[in-house]
């Protein structure tokens, strides 16, 4: 028990040092823009489909659920606000981060872990190329950059999904849907805060993913365990951080 706790704190310390090292390596990424673009493609663009499909379903479910409740109070016209606020404040950043951890985070861990297991990282070091700069930093930056964009996409598609259900199927007035959103969604309180969550989650999830890959035990079992840990740890981190951030943002 004590041994495990010690091990946990040791990992925590290692990951913090790793993060500092990563920050130092970041500027070098801009010397290799092509590498960064390539990583943004594989981390961000390739996650776009799952994000959009999930976003539209979440939006549609919100439309249905919200309607069922609101109609009891005769407030069905406010459906747009319910959908938009739920998405912008909570579901957008959180669900995107969870999906991102599963789709892109696990891939990052497995890729870096396998590079370590097959001595590619070692080989790079011996060629006097810092794997931190060549491999880890571009992937981290790509992840941290893509997440907020994916969050925005998720929210936009979600609001359209809600519109489709609310206006298209349940017959709410289209003008009311949009004007209520425009009226009640505040830029600073809602959109800005939602995006901050997206940025923070992006940094944390990608950090965990690249750290787990870099820190993996270089065997097939080690890589598989690291990949699992990426998904589990980053999901937990996202949910816990969401609570903390929400608390801070609404000043409770």
């Amino acid at each position, binding site marked *: 028990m004590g041994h495990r706790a010690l091990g946990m704190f040791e990992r925590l310390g290692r990951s913090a040092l790793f993060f500092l090292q990563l920050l130092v390596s970041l500027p070098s990424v801009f010397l290799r823009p092509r590498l960064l673009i390539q990583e943004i493609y594989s981390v961000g663009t390739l996650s776009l489909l799952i994000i959009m499909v999930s976003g539209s379903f979440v939006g549609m479910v919100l439309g249905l659920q919200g309607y069922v409740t609101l109609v009891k109070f005769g407030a069905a016209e406010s459906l747009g606000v319910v959908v938009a606020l739920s998405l912008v404040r909570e579901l957008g950043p959180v669900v995107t981060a969870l999906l991102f951890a599963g789709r892109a985070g696990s891939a990052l861990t497995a890729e870096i872990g396998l*590079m370590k297991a*097959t*001595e*590619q990282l*070692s*080989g*790079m*070091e*011996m*060629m*006097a*190329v*810092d794997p931190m700069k*060549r491999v880890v930093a571009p992937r981290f930056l790509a992840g941290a950059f893509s997440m907020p964009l994916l969050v925005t996409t998720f929210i936009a598609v979600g609001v359209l999904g809600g519109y489709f259900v609310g206006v298209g199927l349940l017959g709410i007035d289209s003008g009311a849907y949009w004007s209520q959103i425009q009226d009640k969604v505040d830029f600073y309180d809602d959109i800005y805060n939602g995006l901050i969550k997206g940025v923070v989650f992006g940094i944390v999830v990608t950090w965990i993913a690249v750290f787990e890959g870099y820190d993996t035990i270089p065997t097939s079992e080690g890589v598989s365990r690291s990949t699992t840990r990426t998904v589990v740890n980053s999901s937990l981190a996202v949910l816990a951080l969401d609570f903390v951030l929400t608390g801070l943002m609404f000043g409770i």
Partner: protein
Amino acid sequence: MSTEHPQVLIEVENLHFSRGGNKIFDGLDLEIRAGQITAIMGPSGTGKTTLLRLIGGQLRPEKGVIRVDGLDVHRLSRKELYALRKRMGMLFQTGALLTDLSVFENVAFPYREHTRLPEAMIRDLVLMKLEAVGLRTARNLMPSELSGGMARRVALARAMALDPMMIMYDEPFTGLDPITLGHIVELIRRLNDALGLTSILVSHDVEETLSIADYAYVISEGKVVESGTPKTLAETTNAWVRQFLEGETDKAELLTEKAKDYLDDLMGERRA
């Protein structure tokens, strides 16, 4: 080979290193002379690969000094270490090719990372290096499409890219068919002499290694147990070394010598 007493390029003095509570090196001393092929042999698990990583500065010794070309590897700043590594080539057992790049790009990798040469020149250099290992035609293949021997030759071309002063070979003969093996043996000798390299060859394949080595060290239990030219090694009086050099089966017995008594081990749980 050119002169009688070539200058010492790498010195290892009183090296101590352990991992996970296991002592791997316990006062290891050796010297590697410039221009020669020096073999480091020993049974599996004696830390031969670890030694290469220590020389390359990827691991830190607990005690002792490793000097490469007069520089204390573990006292260098990160920048100096990276500068030194540019002058070292290392051939990993698996080749360690970057799997997302083609053969051509793998060999071009050191040039792209460390130089600002124009594309046309990189192309020429890469083709020259690939020609030297006989794989110019394989340039568009991906590493996953290569056989073990080919991958190792590509890795060798890459290790030579920056014209290093030395190349470290980690078990270059393991898992190759006899013909490929012959190629690699010859290639190592030819490159060493043609390019004036210094080679360190870590291996447990006694016959192939001694056929090209100028000097050889046999290590066991963290120390050098015997050293000399292949000729003098063949006349060794040390029984252990003799058995290691000559027989595979006897070796196994010697290695288990220190283990617990077999019967005790089998009955251990019930007796306890």
